[in-house]
């Protein structure tokens, strides 16, 4: 055991093993799953953080499960992008876990504290930790079949989490989510099968090294791409996302928006990164056009929503677009090109996580989330209101936030390569984002007083965790060189 611990590369499996064990323990401790859930969340975060630390100091790592070499065995590899995503999950995940602890405590102790909330919490922790482990596995896996497995695990646990709230609306949304997700996975699996048939290996790096365009490979890559687009909810495949994200329990909304969609995008990006010359400019433009559609359509939808959680959910639809519009810029940008969407992804994760957590707190305190009746929330929930506003600033791309850095990188790429239509799109997107964010923030931070005082039912952990996550989004505006250094580590 000791020698196993000392063996350098076992660090790689800890971010996967620890959450999975946590899922098991919290599932077995039916009556009080909260403490094991929180403890294992902390351990999982530490594992993610130390992996990133180690990779930054000693370079990328790889680990073959059970000692089997590829192409037979499962191999994990921790290079810069993978580790950055694990780190993002560690930070966001820890905040969400702390929030969830307070959330369930408040709900169970609240006026309507019935069995329903106890049951929800009992299933929340195992599902969430399972999702966490699967997500880390997805980021770290080096072969495409393993990617399929983890993708499926992520999807199933997400669907379970979505259905937890038990409202009819969320049941319908969860069912739709399940069907879309299965369709996406199936498409992905078929693509994987084609690739294995053609190249006889499951290792992504090996395939990318030799890939060339032929009809079966074209079909395979199309199926993989469409499957992942479905899962990432890229416009026009986004229809399932807003009801699923908006009707879920507060911590679940944050998990889905901040983390889960990044999983699908990450695989898409890893598949295509390096293959851009293969499809030429036009292929990248198709993806970018979909991304552009997402940015515009999602923003307009977000602007016209009456409910806060729906607004935040549609904002996710729009922000996903930014992760994809970058494709035409990858070819000419050198290393800078790939860094931009990753930086966007991690800032979005913190910002959107904070916003969904804050929106959930507001919902719980006010009993509704109708935007125009939210005047004066600031007096009741100052920290939450600020968390929401700061997260919003990062989404718009205003300083001093991580979103500003990401927007700067995007604009700089677009200007540098003379992509004027894309530049226009980015600027317009920021304007629209500002419009819908300030529409909500003007009410939430409004100086109007609330008539009558309400009883405080919100646990302090809920307010602090959202604010902490928003502050991470701010800190990302100052320490960009650190995540970028992690990203540069190659395998």
């Amino acid at each position, binding site marked *: 055991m000791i020698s196993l611990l000392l063996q350098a590369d076992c660090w790689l499996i800890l971010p996967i093993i620890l959450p999975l064990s946590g899922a098991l323990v919290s599932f077995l401790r039916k009556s009080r799953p909260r403490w094991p859930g929180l403890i294992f969340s902390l351990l999982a975060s530490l594992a993610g953080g130390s992996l990133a630390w180690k990779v930054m100091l000693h370079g990328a790592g790889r680990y073959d499960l059970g000692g089997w070499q590829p192409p037979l065995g499962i191999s994990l590899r921790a290079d810069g992008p993978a580790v950055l995503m694990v780190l993002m999950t560690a930070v966001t995940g820890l905040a969400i876990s702390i929030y969830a602890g307070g959330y369930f405590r408040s709900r169970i102790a609240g006026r309507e504290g019935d069995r329903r909330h106890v049951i929800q919490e009992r299933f929340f922790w195992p599902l969430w930790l399972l999702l966490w482990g699967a997500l880390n596995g997805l980021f770290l896996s080096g072969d495409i079949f393993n990617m399929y497995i983890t993708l499926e695990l992520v999807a199933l646990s997400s669907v379970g989490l979505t259905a937890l709230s038990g409202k009819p609306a969320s049941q319908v949304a969860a069912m739709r989510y399940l069907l879309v997700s299965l369709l996406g996975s199936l498409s992905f699996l078929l693509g994987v099968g084609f690739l294995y048939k053609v190249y006889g290996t499951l290792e992504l790096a090996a395939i990318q090294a030799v890939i060339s365009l032929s009809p079966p490979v074209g079909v395979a890559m199309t199926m993989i791409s469409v499957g992942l687009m479905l899962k990432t909810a890229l416009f026009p495949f986004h229809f399932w996302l807003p009801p699923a994200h908006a009707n879920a329990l507060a911590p679940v909304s944050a998990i889905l928006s901040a983390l889960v969609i990044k999983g699908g995008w990450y695989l898409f990006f890893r598949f295509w990164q390096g293959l851009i010359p293969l499809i030429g400019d036009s292929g990248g433009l198709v993806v970018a056009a979909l991304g552009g559609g997402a940015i515009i359509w999602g923003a307009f939808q977000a602007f016209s929503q009456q409910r806060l959680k729906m607004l935040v959910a549609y904002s996710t639809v729009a922000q996903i677009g930014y992760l994809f519009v970058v494709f035409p810029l990858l070819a000419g940008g050198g290393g*800078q090109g790939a860094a931009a969407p990753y930086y966007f992804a991690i800032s979005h994760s913190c910002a959107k996580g904070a916003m969904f957590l804050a929106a959930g707190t507001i919902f719980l305190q006010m009993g509704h989330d109708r935007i125009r009746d939210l005047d004066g929330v*600031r007096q009741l929930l*100052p920290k939450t209101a600020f968390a929401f506003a700061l997260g919003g*600033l990062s989404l718009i791309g*205003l*300083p*001093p936030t991580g979103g*500003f*850095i990401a*927007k*700067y*990188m995007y*604009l*700089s790429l677009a*200007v*540098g390569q003379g992509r004027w239509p894309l*530049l226009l799109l980015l*600027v317009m997107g*920021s*304007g629209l984002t*500002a419009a819908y964010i*300030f529409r909500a923030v*003007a009410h939430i*931070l*409004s*100086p*109007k*007083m609330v008539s009558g005082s309400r009883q405080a039912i919100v646990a302090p952990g809920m307010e602090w965790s959202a604010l902490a996550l928003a502050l991470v989004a701010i800190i990302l505006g*100052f320490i*960009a*060189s650190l995540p*970028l250094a992690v990203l540069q580590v190659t395998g």
Partner: protein
Amino acid sequence: MRQNWLLIMILLSSLLPGLVIFSLAESRRGMRTCLNLFGAIAKMVLVLVMIVGITRGQRFEFHLAMLPGLDLVLRADPLSALFVTLSSILWLLTTIYAIAYLENSPNRSHFFGYFSLCVTVTIGIALAGNLLTFLFFFEMLTLCTYPLVVHRGTAEAMAAGRVYLIYTLGGGGLLFLGVVWLNSLVGSVDFSRGQQLAPFVRSHGLTLKIIFYLLLAGVGVKAALFPLHSWLPQAMVAPAPVSALLHAVAVVKAGAFGIIRIVLDVYGLETAAHLDLLFPLMVLATVTIIYGSIHALRQDNLKHRLAFSTVSQVSYIALGISIGSPLAIMGGMVHLVHQGLMKITLFFCAGNVAETLGVHEISRMNGVGRRLPLTMAAFTLAAMGMIGLPPMAGFVSKWYLGLGALARGEGWLIGVLVVSSLLNAFYFLPIIYAAWFKEEEGEWPVDSGKAGPLECHWMLIAPPVITAVVSLLVGLLANSNLSPLAWVRFIVRTGYGL
């Protein structure tokens, strides 16, 4: 290392009190006041240390890596010292004023919190050492001032806030675009008098022109250059200390300061002249000066008249820079300080009249001088300065602008200055006349009563009296070694070698 941290401490001296104030309960008035005053005084001491250092030739710089090849740079040069000093002194006075002005009104913790953030960011703008840092703080200024504009929370305030955001964020977007474009063309743009851009004038002349107009539109919104000024009169729904801060120190001044930086430090006079950028700026400034004055004439609401007067007066700064001769630049730069002192006095006084007597319209100000003698005395001094009567501060600015224009052979600008001064007289003198020489018409709408021997709370009177006296002194003693004019001469000599 001590020098590097000085700049950070100057920022922290208002940032930290601000953050603490946010978390204070509404009722902890004493604590809040202490924090505010402690921060303001600490900042003034630190600024003094910095100024002494600058005159001794010390360099103050702070670098933080933001992105590969792009740093966040704070640097104290003589020009930033000018703006930093102005901001920190006026912050102290405005804070004193605001404490009395907002007595018993709700949401004071938030008000003073944002107030401190606002000053922090303004100082950041002043100390910015490159274009990216300038942008960074410039956009943050929008965010810190918006809550102050909508502070009253009425439907009118919210509407004004919306207009304010649309204008400033729109301008911010253009500025962002310009900065990214320029950075991607020449690398990280330092404030280096145009040395970085000069090699690109031949090859990328048109691009540089387009970028200049993007940048100018970006800062022009905040500087209320015509036709980007419409947000400013609407933003007058904010409480008086906010208007004072917005007009004299923070927003409008940040815009004007941005124009100075872009023309003198990013493009440099030579490059700007070579690209024919100065003449359009001159025309724009002239139009704004006349347009603002004419509109000021037509306002009956006192704060609206002052707002349009700001539109007009701030463009003197742009005018001085666009003329480009050393004397004109001095006139423009020194107006940054002079206009700040005079305008903040006027807003303090307007706030006193509104707060103590409930009078908002000029047509109802008959006889105000008898009820509020000190306030109206300060108002009169500042208004005469605005008109440009010697020996007030405003006269010094206009004198140097005129001399500078002549030196450059732009004699027609003298005409503009004269017309503008006449218009200033037309819209200020009736107020002064009504206040002192007309009879009161019955009761005041409200009268919050005298506070002892004084006409109202001493904290409402001291700030305008001090700023009025100072604006008289800086004019009278313009030739002494400690006047803003002397410092501006130092800037133009050492900083720009003119």
